[in-house]
């Protein structure tokens, strides 16, 4: 009798874990929203929501590219350095106008992405090693281009950083639009399907005649370009270029958002909705703890707990 109950409990636990992995991140967001509504003063204000959304936008944009890299059974550690490179390039090219400067920054991201992709697809270096190399090199290059913090005084940039449409900041609109585009690419394009197949079983994808190298290069180019866009937006918001600190630990925040959002590190699946929710969850968690006057170190511990939970749910499911 006890054994039977035990069996049922296990089945229930499996189901619970599956639900946790698929919808846990959304539930987490809802719980934090509700809890803050009740316990945090002034939480339910348009101003607060705007602040939160603006803060999460760059992380989210970087996480979108990270989701693609992780879906292809890889990872991109160079995203933070790409942001730094991006901000340096903006300062260098601002003389030609904000558009040219932003374009230069994105091209910088694409170049780094190409280097990552070429190392991974043609040389056969493991993604974690290849992008680690570019992470170090990218930050170094950013500091060579712009050795110290520099103010960005440009009306166009300032408008990008703090302007809005009907109360919704540009930053948030851009992040949302990019999320929709990436979700569409993953679901509806040949590239998206091929990416998932390559992430799930590379030998099979190769024998099925898929353009494995091309797909991998596009993945890292997308990741680099998205990180560069995040760098442009962060620069616009801060109205300053700070290649020393911009984007530090960004790769970890992005990986966290992706993993917490239910994309398995083993590749073959990409969950964009989950990634968005993952980024929002981490942001809310941070805010909650800060607003209740807990030291920042608590935020890190809380993040760690969420990551462990997410990975635990994914692992249990992977065993089935």
């Amino acid at each position, binding site marked *: 009798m006890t054994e039977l109950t035990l069996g049922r409990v296990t089945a229930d636990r499996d189901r619970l874990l599956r639900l946790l992995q698929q919808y846990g991140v959304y539930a987490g967001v809802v719980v934090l929203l509700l809890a803050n509504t009740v316990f945090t003063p002034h939480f339910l204000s348009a101003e607060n929501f705007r602040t939160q959304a603006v803060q999460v936008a760059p992380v989210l944009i970087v996480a979108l590219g990270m989701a693609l890299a992780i879906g292809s059974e890889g990872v991109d550690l160079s995203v933070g350095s790409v942001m730094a490179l991006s901000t340096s390039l903006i300062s260098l090219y601002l003389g030609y106008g904000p558009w040219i400067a932003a374009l230069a920054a994105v091209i910088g991201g694409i170049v780094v992405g190409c280097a990552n992709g070429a190392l991974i697809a043609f040389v056969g270096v493991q993604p974690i090693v290849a992008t680690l190399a570019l992470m170090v090199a990218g930050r170094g290059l950013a500091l060579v281009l712009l050795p110290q913090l520099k103010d960005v005084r440009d009306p166009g940039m300032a408008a990008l950083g703090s302007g809005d449409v009907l109360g919704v900041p540009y930053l948030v609109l851009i992040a949302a639009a990019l999320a929709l585009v990436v979700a569409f690419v993953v679901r*509806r394009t*040949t590239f998206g*399907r091929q990416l998932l197949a390559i992430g*799930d079983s590379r030998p099979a994808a*190769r024998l099925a005649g*898929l353009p494995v190298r091309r797909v991998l290069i596009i993945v890292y180019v997308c990741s680099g370009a998205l990180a560069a866009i995040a760098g442009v937006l962060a620069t616009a918001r801060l109205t300053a270029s700070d290649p020393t600190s911009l984007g530090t630990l960004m790769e970890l925040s992005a990986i966290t958002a992706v993993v917490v959002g239910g994309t398995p590190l083993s590749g*073959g699946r990409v969950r964009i909705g989950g990634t968005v929710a993952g980024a929002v969850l981490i942001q809310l968690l941070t805010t909650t703890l800060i607003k209740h006057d807990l030291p920042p170190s608590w935020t890190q511990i809380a993040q760690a707990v969420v990551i462990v939970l997410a990975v635990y749910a994914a692992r249990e499911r992977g065993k089935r």
Partner: protein
Amino acid sequence: MLSVSGLTKTFPGVRALSGVDFTARAGEVHALIGENGAGKSTLIKVLTGVHRPDEGEVTYDGSPVRFATPLQAQHAGISTIYQEVNLVPLMSVARNLFLGREPRGPLGLIDFRRMHREADAALRELGVRVDVRRPLRELGVGVQQMVALARAVSVDARVVIMDEPTSSLEPREVRTLFRVIRMLRERGIAVIYVSHRLDELYEICDAVTVLRDGRVVHTGRMAELERLRLVALMLGREIGEVQGEGLTKFSGGHDAEAEPVLRAEELTVRHELHGVSLSVRPGEVVGLGGLLGSGRSETAKAIAGALPTDSGRVLVAGVPVRPGSTPAAIRAGISLLPEDRKAEGIVPGLSVRENIALAALPGLSRFGLVDEGRIDRIVDTFMKRLRIKAAGPHQKVGELSGGNQQKVLLARWLAMQPKVLLLDEPTRGIDVGAKAEVQKLIDELADDGLGVLLISSDTEELIEGSDRVVVLKDGVVVEELTGDAVTEDRLMRAIATAPAGTGDPDD
């Protein structure tokens, strides 16, 4: 010794086992057979503690048990040798043999000298001579299987479960395996033997249990069950039908005068192939014969651009194909069904639908956007035509039985409308029913004008299925059998009388 009664196990959407009774007795070899998806693997997994039953009882040594983990089952004396060898490829043979129970020296460190000596002795007993210090992955699959067996035997198992142990063994190794099984039987060990090879079952097994659709349809003495009756039970058909249809019969009409659709000229790959030439005409099934390691798979891979060649060329309908490029070969109309279905064929996490559409995707898209409607139609057509059994097009391929996975792969290639199909062991490890279906399909495809190159370790299938057989030995074409010469006897003689040295066990 080990028995179950009233066993029921349900997975989401599928009832894998319902009310199964099964008893393995000490000193008896018990055959467990059934088509793919009949529930054999699930039953084994319940017996070994991988799955827990929803209903029913497992009795071991007279008392009810419930193994929570495979480890518990192992400690209780139930050893399993799975289809895919589950050992650590980078560790040495000896370490694998003694994994988790290494002999210790005075300081609690591993006593390597003793371990190597004992490992060597254990393998010698099974008739295997290898350097036990070598990493396991450097050895052939056959030897790996023997190591797994040696490990199972040496842990003082009382029940040994073997899941298709001979599927990657050479005849000589099968003899060794059977000798070991008889030895186990004499020691009073209960052996549960899963296989699709009927000859082996009748040779080695005492009792038999036939499963179909998760139920036991027959259980009794092996010798008292007629072959034809056994096949009929597995397939769930009447005997008359089975007899009429035959088990491994393709026939093929083709035009002997036609221009070859595929021509391989002097293919050479260092250490693997030495100037292999062959041609396939439209509508023709050409068999590629030879022992393991004779270069059959390598030839297919070289033609498909998946193995870089040092020299030689491949022509499709007279036009040379760019060498060393799978996409180029596929564009030219060459499709390869790889030998290792699980690792190189299916994409397990994707659905049946995505797997079928995978290779044809660029053709089913406009401006990089996937045309879902067209994919649905193609997937629907092939799922019906090939009779793919799945809960639906959105079920993950990894959850299907081997035969259905193979059909999904065939569908993937047929959706490309190829000119040449290279089939490397298309029916290995799939059940008799699906096997007959796949063979019939190959026949139909050849009738439609496809050129087929068939590789099979099942000589009967090779001989009956092929119009011509090209015999390879050590990477060289030694003979080509045509017309009346396509017989098992001639094939054996071609292999035996070839001048080259003995075959390498690695494939």
